[in-house]
């Protein structure tokens, strides 16, 4: 599929969208009903007013009931409108919820390589920013536009039923005004964009000044810097001015047009018999029509904005769809073997096709062995770990983890088979306990206790204000203690195999000793693989497996 096709179809996004619609059919129907009701209700008050004025025109009084009706319809129409707005918000939220769920589910299906290739902040922005834009697209874009269009049509219909002439007049003016609205909005957007750019320069100039302050002082360039700053401000000033001109002219022009339409209607209505056929209206109708003319222009302005919202969502739609279309992780699973050894058989692997990292690598590790992988940087020591944890699959050959293919390990099995102590501890939001269990409520307190003992963290945790239930913050622990937490996390479900990355790389000698003590006790009775020579030496007698030549 070429990029262009992808861009135009947005199939994945559509699928997610269709799913939400299906699930919330009731809500959607309710919302449509609400919009229709709200539009109809907003049309009624002027009609009541028409009645009242007509009665007055006929020399009759207005009953309190009629006055109350007028008030009641205003209240109902207000209420329905705010209900409609709330409904649109709820609907937009459901859509974004559905899309975010789809995005989240995609995460588990992505290959590990995606996470190594893409900065997490950028991916997160697809979830947050682009997700919000989709919300705006539906709530303040598509749905609101439908509601506003309906309002315009509704008002036009009422006008036509009362006065054909006024209807024609408004129909003629509406496209012109809409064109005017769009032109103003486009221009003002352009000016706003220029202003944003200028403001970015204005704002960027300040840190730049701080960064270059010595140079500025030495060359006495203060005045020059001020002039440059003034230049940027001037750019922004002019852009703001341009957008202000449009802003100031827009609604006066609209209101003047309203007045002109009203005046024309009244003149025609007062005209001779030939016009009466077209504009034949009573006083009450005239008052009501003035009210309608005043109402038709604000939805027009909104529609312009909504078009804008829909247009500006294009980039977000693209980001989301590209993400949903990322190739998925479908490892080929090899047959389980009857062995309790860790075995690499003729493994080839490369992150890119033409740049192999591992070539024909084979080795056996017996149960309970302590092994160090040695090799220069870039030889593929970490890669071996990634293959062992099932994050990647070999291009050729097989990886065997005590009888299992690491890629085929079920989520439940994983922590009982391998424990992986990463180079840097990755803290997760929640309590200190969550750091160890990773939110697994099946892990018993005894198991946690045993892990803490192994890691030598028991005393530290007991000194925390709420013990294990203390809210996690990296400031609670020293760097070494964070690594101990990482060890506790790895061993809490008593895995057979323990993988140790360069656990102590960033620690000073004293802290390192404590971590090594913990590793030593954790290593007992397990197969332990490390890629740090220092570490394995400290733990015990290690067999060395050379990687790369």
């Amino acid at each position, binding site marked *: 599929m070429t990029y262009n096709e992808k861009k135009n179809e947005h199939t994945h996004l559509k699928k997610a969208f269709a799913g939400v619609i299906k699930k919330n059919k009731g809500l959607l129907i309710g919302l449509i009903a609400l919009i229709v009701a709200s539009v109809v209700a907003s049309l009624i008050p002027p009609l009541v007013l028409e009645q*009242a004025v007509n009665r*007055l025109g006929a*020399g009759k*009084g*207005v009953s309190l009931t009629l*006055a109350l009706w007028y*008030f009641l319809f205003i*209240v109902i129409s207000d209420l329905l409108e*705010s209900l409609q*707005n*709330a409904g649109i*918000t*709820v609907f937009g939220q459901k859509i974004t*919820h559905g899309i*975010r769920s789809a995005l*989240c*589910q995609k*995460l*588990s299906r992505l290959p*590990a390589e995606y*996470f190594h290739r893409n900065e997490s902040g950028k*991916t*997160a922005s697809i979830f947050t920013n682009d997700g919000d834009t989709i919300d705006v697209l539906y709530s303040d874009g598509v749905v609101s536009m439908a509601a506003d269009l309906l309002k315009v049509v509704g008002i036009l219909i009422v006008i036509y039923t009362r006065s054909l002439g006024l209807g024609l007049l408004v129909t003629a003016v509406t496209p012109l005004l809409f064109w005017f609205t769009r032109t103003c909005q486009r221009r003002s957007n352009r000016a706003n964009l220029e202003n944003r750019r200028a403001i970015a320069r204005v*704002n960027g100039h*300040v840190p*730049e000044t*701080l960064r270059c302050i*010595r140079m500025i*002082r*030495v060359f006495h360039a*203060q*005045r*020059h810097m*001020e*002039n*440059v700053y003034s230049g940027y*401000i001037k750019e922004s000033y002019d852009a*703001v001015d341009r957008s*202000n001109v449009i*802003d100031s002219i827009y609604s*006066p022009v609209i209101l*003047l047009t309203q*007045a*002109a339409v009203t*005046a024309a209607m*009244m003149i025609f*209505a*007062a005209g001779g018999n030939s016009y009466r056929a077209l504009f034949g209206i009573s*006083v009450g109708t005239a*008052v009501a029509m003035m009210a309608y003319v005043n109402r038709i222009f604000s939805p027009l302005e909104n529609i312009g904005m909504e078009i804008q919202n829909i247009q500006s969502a294009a980039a977000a739609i693209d980001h989301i769809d590209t993400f949903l279309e990322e190739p998925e992780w479908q490892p080929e699973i090899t047959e389980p073997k009857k062995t309790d050894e860790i075995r690499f058989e003729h493994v080839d692997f490369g992150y890119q096709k033409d740049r192999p990292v591992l070539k024909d690598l084979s080795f056996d590790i017996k149960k309970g062995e302590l092994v160090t992988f040695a090799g220069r940087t870039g030889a593929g020591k970490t890669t071996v770990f990634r293959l062992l944890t099932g*994050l990647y699959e070999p291009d050729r050959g097989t990886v065997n983890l005590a009888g299992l293919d690491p890629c085929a390990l*079920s989520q439940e*099995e*994983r*922590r009982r088979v391998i424990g*992986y102590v990463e180079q840097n501890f*990755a803290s997760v*939001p929640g309590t200190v306990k969550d750091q160890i269990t*990773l*939110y697994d409520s099946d892990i018993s307190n005894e198991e946690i206790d045993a892990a803490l003992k192994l890691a030598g963290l028991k005393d530290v945790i007991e000194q925390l204000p709420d013990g294990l239930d203390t809210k996690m913050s990296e400031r609670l622990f020293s760097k070494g203690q964070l690594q101990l937490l990482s060890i506790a996390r790895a061993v809490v479900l008593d895995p057979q195999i323990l993988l140790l990355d360069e656990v102590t790389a960033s620690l000073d000698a004293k802290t390192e000793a404590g971590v090594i003590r913990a590793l030593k006790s954790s290593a007992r009775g397990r197969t332990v693989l490390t890629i740090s020579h220092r570490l394995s030496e400290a733990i015990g007698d290690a067999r060395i497996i050379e990687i790369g030549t």
Partner: protein
Amino acid sequence: MSDQKTSHSKRIMQKQKVVHPDRIMSYFLANIPVLIIVTISGLIYNIGMLAGPYFEGRLAQTLYDIIGGRSKFSDMVQIAFFYIIAILIVQAGRAVKRFGVRRFANNVSSSMRRNLYNSLVHSDQQKLQKEGLGSLLTKAISDVDACSEGMRKFTTEIFDTGVVMIAYVCMLVHYDFRLAILSCMFTPIAYLAADRLKTVVTRANAEYKKSAAALSGRTMDRIGNALTYRVYGREKNRDEAYERSLSDYEKKSAKANLFESSMAPLYDAIAMLGTVLVIYFGAKNVQGTGWTAWNIAAFTTFLSCFTKLATKVSHAAKLFNSVQKAAVSWKRIKPLMKDSVEDSFDPDKVPVRPQGVEFSDVTCGYDGEKMLKHISFEAKPGQIIGVTGGVASGKSLLGRVLLGEVPYEGAVTIGGKDLGSMTEREKLEAVSYSGHDPELLSTSFFDNISLGSDIDVDRFLQMTCLDEDLKNMHRSADWPVGEGGAMLSGGQQARLSLARALAHARSILVLDDPFASVDKVTETKILKEIRREFPDRTIIIMTHRLYHFPEFDCVLYLHNGHGTFLPHDKMLEKEPGYRALYEEQAKGGDYDDI
């Protein structure tokens, strides 16, 4: 082109100078002409707002009279004509007022920004970096918008809410004061009710914001720790937790929105209760059985004025809010607003006279720590002195002594004058400096070198061989170098920084690590150019690259906080450390030779 822009912006700067920038009133005073226009057009617009309802009433009345045969067609044409003229004047007033108020805000924001920047750029380096004045000023500058926006809203609302409400009330009272009082009774009740609801709304909003923060935290965690969760088999569990966060967010946002949007109609409903009375009693007035005798025009005018007034009242709260917000920002800005510094001194205009530098028994370092001890050396006009030593031996420190940044004991003289007794201006006239941080601006090559002065930039591009780089990149000197010189290689950055120092060279040139990441051939070429162009200057070069040291007039070798000052040959004999450094590089073992 760029000159034009600069002179233009200078003009604005002069025009918008604000006296007493730390008083909010000053900004109103500085904009009196604009504000007079705003006042006149604002009054026209807001009082004229009554014209709409008035004429619409008259139009309806005239139609009634025509149908009843009491008026002629021409009466209608006449009224319609006046109606349009009135609306035209009113709306023109509105356009002028709107633009004027925005102009005013734009002016205020510009002069506040300029003022803060002026005090930033003229602040003491120490205060900016060490005492956090820099970040304080940066924050203040970001507060400017909130402040000027508040002033704009305040000015707008004075007219659009204040004046217009008075006008409406007067109109209502004029038509029927009893009905006016009766129907307006509900408005304060609506205001109080809205105020009550506010706490509920605020709470719902706070919950919504909390949930939004939680969701974004979850998102970051789910993605950032994705592989940890995968290795530990926790992905399914985390997806479920994310789903819960999504549901919570959805619920809270719907709730907050419902409260927020349900407030306005409720409020309006209460305020609009008055319409029942207006219609009922107003109809009686028309029939002649009420308090005042009305025609249909009076009836519709009164009703439409009342409706507009009822919806206006909610703006009173907005006015209050905007002023409050602006006050918070202003409080942060105010203490930083100082009378702007005017300084037209240009060291480039002062003629250069040859001067030497002498350090005798200088001990120096930051915060009382003595990093260099008993340093003595002399550099005469026309000489190049090489300063070298191991990593962190104090090369850069020595240069900064000449900038007056480092406290020292002993004596430093420039042209025979004691550095300590020299004024800032005299120092600027004597010393040029290029540090090993290139401190480049994001503007063009041209601007980085000229710094706004009238300088033959091409000559210095050529001296530092940057002209060839530009040619190879197919670019001109007007090309921007990117933030901090990001578009340039390390060597290009160093040379641009050097070109700038040469372009503004005074009697003494201190070049700290000028050839970082510059290849040997280019370095040789540049040094030759410098020697030719500046035969009468005193040049001090700090570097760890020694191939050109044999050609230098003398060498200062820094080791263990001490300095040995000797010509290169003698230094080789006397200092084994220097010899080792030199020989290692002579062998070709230079690490950053590219």
